[in-house]
């Protein structure tokens, strides 16, 4: 119990990932859904770093750098789309985003 192994980190990562999945599937506010996706990306990052530590191999950490870069790109474009959509329909409810054009 007092010795922390990689399995502990994997369980933490799995739990955080599940919280993210619940957020994406249950909430309707698209900003919250974006944030839940960020939670999932962080869960994956924890997993990668933990295994990099276990294998004494830095490649896991290299991947985390790329994941953070992609997350930044995703947030910028996603929020840009969200703002453009909000300007036209005045809503951030994902159920009302059911048309491809307006």
């Amino acid at each position, binding site marked *: 119990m007092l010795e922390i192994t990689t399995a502990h980190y994997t369980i933490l990562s799995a739990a955080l990932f*599940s919280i993210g999945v619940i957020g994406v599937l*249950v909430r309707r*506010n698209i900003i919250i859904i974006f944030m839940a996706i960020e939670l999932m990306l962080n869960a994956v990052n924890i997993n990668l770093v*933990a295994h990099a530590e276990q*294998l004494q191999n830095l490649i896991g950490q290299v991947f985390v750098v790329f994941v953070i870069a992609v997350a*930044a*790109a995703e947030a*910028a474009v996603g*929020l840009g*789309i969200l703002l453009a959509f909000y300007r036209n329909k005045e809503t951030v409810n994902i159920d009302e985003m059911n048309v491809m054009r307006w």
Partner: protein
Amino acid sequence: MAEALAFYTLSILILGLGVAVITTPKTVHSVVFLVLNFLCVAALYVVLQAEFLAVIQILVYAGGIVVLYLFVVMLVNLKRQPEEHQDPRRLAKVGLVLSGAVLVELAAIVVYSYGREPSSVSAPSPAFPVQGNIEELGWLLYTDYLIPFEVASVLLLVAMVGAIILARREL
């Protein structure tokens, strides 16, 4: 002992704040919990001896991405809460069940793989000509992973241009 204490404290904080992010009714509060969550994840990276990633996590996630979220939340001045509108065809219960299924599947994978010998496919990194976490990470990024690194920078450029075009008023 110290690692266990740090791990359990941070785990409870990370999971608790994660739940708070997806359950809080006010979006601004969600964003604040998300920042605190990311700070705890950064602390966890320090425990895992990835201090460069910890700092980058704070600098990029907490200092950059989440500020963007906060900015958008303040721009999107909601007259009505999005959760008030319910699509009758929406199946929130099914969503909950499906997320439960994901949790079970992840748990099964963890339990199944726990106790097995780690496959020895991945060898420890070869000896670096430099010392220290940042130096070694930089060495990898600028030698073996140079092309992905450059592709990531192009991706960021594309995202930046795309975001500016999307945010312009006349679309």
